């Protein structure tokens, strides 16, 4: 699958030389180093970083919950940083946002929470409100919970209410602020599935921040890695995930692949042969290249670690193996021709 990248698609969110610092006790504490970034229409863009890296500041710059110290921010062609208060409020209605702790109104029912942004936007007609709320709750699978209060729901259900609320005004952009960080793994998976579905069906651009590489792997098209207020790496998720460059990125990828991390620490010296990491993407994952090459060249391989999974919809595989034999180089050349990426970890 081709990944959208800046240049080929229109940027729906554009940061131009933006930086942000906070004034604390008369001193400027930098939160985000100057950066420029384009997020294109219809993609799911992930921003990953440790806590304190500046990711929650970055996502809040988009709807100007945080004002930049310098630079310009465009959303859908409108320069957000140039807007006066009323115009800014109107723009914010076109950008949905969901939060780690859901931030629902505890005093209102599920239905009233979802109707809230519609009422803020001036909708008064009870029938129209009810119809839209029912439609939204059905989309997030909470049709039966309209009259409950948030405290009666599970975390995953609360986040679904948050998503329904964020979609109420038919936004073109959805911002997700650590939306799954307070959820257990199964609930996280189902919420991410819902986000992916929304992205597909409503053609909504999604920007999400997270500290989990697994979230990025499951739903994002592109990713930026934030470290101490600077974007240290960015690109298509498959590239960043399979070939991380920056130490911080490598750490995130290793967290998502614990068995891979373990194999890098394994006593390779005790294994004879060349230690290789083979990465397969897309169709390459599905063809039996490895056994064919082994048969043809007579090399032997010993599997040390491996995984087959998906990066969003893209199937991929990664195998760490020890290879020995007289024609290893020829074998590797053939594998590369078949579209398999090879890294040599140890010789």
């Amino acid at each position, binding site marked *: 699958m081709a990944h959208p990248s800046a240049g080929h698609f229109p940027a729906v969110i554009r940061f131009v030389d933006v930086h942000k610092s906070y004034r604390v006790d008369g001193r400027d504490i930098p939160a985000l180093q100057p950066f420029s970034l384009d997020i294109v229409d219809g993609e799911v863009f992930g921003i990953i970083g440790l806590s304190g890296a500046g990711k929650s500041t970055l996502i809040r710059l988009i*709807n100007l*919950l945080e004002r930049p110290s310098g630079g310009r921010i465009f959303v859908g062609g409108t320069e957000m940083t140039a807007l006066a208060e009323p115009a800014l*409020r*109107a*723009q*914010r*209605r076109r*950008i949905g*946002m969901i*939060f780690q*702790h859901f*931030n*629902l*109104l*505890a*005093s*209102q029912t599920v239905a009233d929470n979802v109707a*809230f*942004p519609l*009422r*803020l*936007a001036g909708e008064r007609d009870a029938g129209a409100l009810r119809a839209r709320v029912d439609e939204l709750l059905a989309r997030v699978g909470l049709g039966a919970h309209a009259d409950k*209060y*948030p*405290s*009666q729901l599970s975390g995953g259900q609360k986040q679904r209410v948050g998503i329904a*609320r964020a979609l109420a*005004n038919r936004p073109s952009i959805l*911002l997700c602020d650590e939306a799954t960080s307070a959820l257990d793994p199964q609930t996280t998976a189902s919420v991410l599935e819902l986000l992916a579905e929304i992205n597909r069906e409503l053609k909504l651009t999604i920007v999400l921040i997270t500290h989990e590489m697994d979230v990025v792997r499951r739903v994002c098209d592109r990713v930026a890695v934030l470290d101490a207020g600077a974007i240290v790496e960015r690109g298509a998720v498959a590239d960043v995930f399979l070939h991380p460059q920056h130490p911080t990125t490598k750490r995130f990828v290793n967290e998502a692949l614990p068995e891979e991390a373990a194999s890098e620490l394994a006593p390779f010296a005790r294994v004879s042969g060349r230690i290789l990491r083979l990465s397969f993407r897309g169709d390459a994952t599905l063809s039996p290249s490895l056994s064919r090459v082994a048969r043809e060249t007579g090399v032997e391989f010993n599997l040390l670690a491996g995984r087959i999974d998906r990066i969003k919809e893209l199937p991929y595989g990664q195998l760490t193996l020890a290879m020995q034999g007289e024609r290893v180089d020829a074998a590797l050349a053939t594998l590369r021709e078949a579209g398999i990426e090879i890294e040599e970890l140890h010789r």
Partner: protein
Amino acid sequence: MSPLQRLFPNIDDWGELGRACLDTLLMLGGSLALTVLIGLPLGVLLYLTGKGQLRPMPKLYAITSLLVNILRSVPFIILMIVLMPLTYALVGTKLGIRGAIPPLVIGAAPFFARLVETALREVQQGVIEASQAMGASLWQIVRHVLLPEARAGIAAGVTVTAIALVGYTAMGGAIGSGGLGDLAYRYGYLSYKSDYMLVTVVLLVVLVQVLQMIGDRIVARFGRH
């Protein structure tokens, strides 16, 4: 002699006692309504202009806060006397229910405003941020987020204020505002008719109990979710 007379030999006019009860209730109701009407916006103002809040205005906050503290630190009986010229200017009398209401409100509104401010501070910052992200204006946030979310705390504040007002009305009796406090003071204290004292105290205790019960029920209802 009826048993009632044997028990309370000095109380010859139960009607007077009934009227005093009604006066106390009227003073309480009137002053509580005005206190909420003035104290609620004042509490919202204190909250909004506070440090790190939605519209921080350090100077305005400092002035309002000082005024509130001054009014809260003057003992009510003294406040009532000090305010007499103002009371007269406002309602044309210093006596009776009408004369009691201005000092009661001026004494209780700052107290209630602080309770409102505290209740509003309990509202999750995240909920406010979410409504800002939805494009809510300041007024919409106050009206549709802050006040509904803080309603349990505000109801508790109204209860506490109402009970404080019961005490204030009783004090007011000493300087001519009528009501149960007036009876207790004139008959019970000045004329040594201790059965009057006993009956008024019992009535005041019952009143406070009833107020607390109603308040608790409302708070529980609001706070359930």
